[in-house]
């Protein structure tokens, strides 16, 4: 094991050729993760509320649509967005945006079900109390149900973000210069210490993901003890 290859390429792996060139590496992975995390949370919240509040045909359509995004591999969806977005909008969409779009759609589809379950988990009494106080349905949702449901859903949001960080590595396949892509680039340029390079890169991802993972477990524990004490 010889980690000098890491030392020589550390800056490149961490932020690409920035500030002289485009941002890349771990910094771009972080950017991609944060962007898709926010977008998938917003999308998941919207779709989850729709799923919980809708009925009949709209509900069936939503379930089928969400099921589709949960059934196809992330890689396949990245192909679709990468090739279709430019055609749909007639402009050149940067690769990073199409990857972000694919990750948000998948993340949103998974989160929608947890949001829906969270809303269902709030007892009927809360709804009835809110309505009898003269709140509109939307305001009951906004001020009474969601604040309670979100606290319960936080661990599943964080778990979704963990798999999101891992999925940003798929941007490699369409040539976005994030951490995995630069690692493969450094590997094919040096060709000497592949094990060291990928161990190091794996360790960066591991640090990011397990920090979030530990947070999710702590929150889950705190929530469980909070409900038991009531």
């Amino acid at each position, binding site marked *: 094991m010889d980690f000098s290859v890491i030392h020589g390429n550390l800056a490149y792996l961490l932020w690409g050729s920035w500030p002289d060139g485009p941002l890349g590496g771990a910094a771009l992975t972080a950017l991609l993760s944060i962007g898709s995390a926010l977008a998938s949370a917003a999308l998941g919240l919207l779709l989850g509320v729709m799923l919980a509040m809708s009925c009949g045909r709209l509900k069936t359509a939503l379930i089928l649509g969400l099921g589709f995004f949960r059934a196809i591999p992330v890689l396949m969806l990245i*192909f679709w967005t990468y090739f279709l977005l430019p055609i749909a909008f007639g402009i050149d969409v940067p690769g990073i945006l199409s990857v972000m779009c694919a990750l948000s759609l998948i993340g949103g589809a998974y989160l929608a079900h947890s949001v829906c379950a969270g809303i269902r988990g709030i007892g009927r009494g809360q709804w009835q109390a809110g309505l009898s106080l003269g709140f509109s349905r939307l305001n009951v949702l906004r001020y009474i149900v969601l604040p309670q449901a979100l606290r319960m859903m936080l661990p599943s949001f964080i778990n979704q973000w963990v798999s999101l960080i891992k999925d940003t590595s798929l941007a490699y396949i369409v040539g976005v210069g994030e951490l995995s892509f630069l690692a493969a680039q450094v590997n094919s340029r040096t060709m000497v210490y592949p094990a060291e390079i990928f161990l190091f890169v794996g360790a960066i991802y591991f640090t990011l993901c397990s920090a979030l993972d530990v947070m999710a477990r702590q929150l889950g524990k705190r929530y469980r003890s909070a409900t038991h004490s009531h």
Partner: protein
Amino acid sequence: MVLIVALQRQHRFFLWSPIMMFELLRPEYLFWLFKGFLLTLQIGLVVIPAATLLGFLATLAAGSAWRPVAWLATGLVAVLRNSPLLVQLFFWYFGAPALLPDAVREWLNITQSVSLPGGLSLPWPSYEFLCGVLGLTLYSAAFVSEEIRAGMQGVPRTQQHAAEALGMRPWQIFRYVIAPQALRIALPLLMGQYMNIVKNSSLTMAIGVMELSYASRQVETVSFKTFQAFGVATLLYVLIIAVLEAMALLVQHRLPVFGTRR
């Protein structure tokens, strides 16, 4: 060998027209996609049992009374779960051979077939396929082991105590009391993981395994029929997942969970 798909999309704007969207794929392209589909199925059929077995062993190891074994298993599961499959595949494909002794590496590269007793010989799978299956199995086993653990934790403690009171041996308690109940709780979760295995098998294209996603990219590059190539591949993935989903429903119907929900 390794497929790097950094490609230009610009020229596709000019080639794309509404008419092309509805043209069918030529039979030879469909055949490529079908071959990819078969390889995806093959990966699934190898990885699902292997990951289940390994995941079960990891659960046992993590619960072992011998501390170092328990820590090692827990640590390995955490590392495998919290790093991307793509990086793990690269590690097994590029990194691991560099760590192996030369003789083993040569044997892996040269071996073309395995002779079986009775003069039969099986073609030895490609190096890419072996690495893909190994990486996917280890990654999935970590997730499977968490689901099995969840299943075992779902069995009430009182079941264990009751079995002990009846004078059953530890092995009997596991075999006749804990395992059947844990399996019923874990089965829906496990089916979810099996679907993930099929979906994640698409990542092996990055190390050159010619499965369904690889084939769809290949057809797309040669024929320029983006919609049809990705469309057929997407439908085939949805088909596999739908079959697994139906199996999951059937299993859940056949094995209702008694006594765990009060």
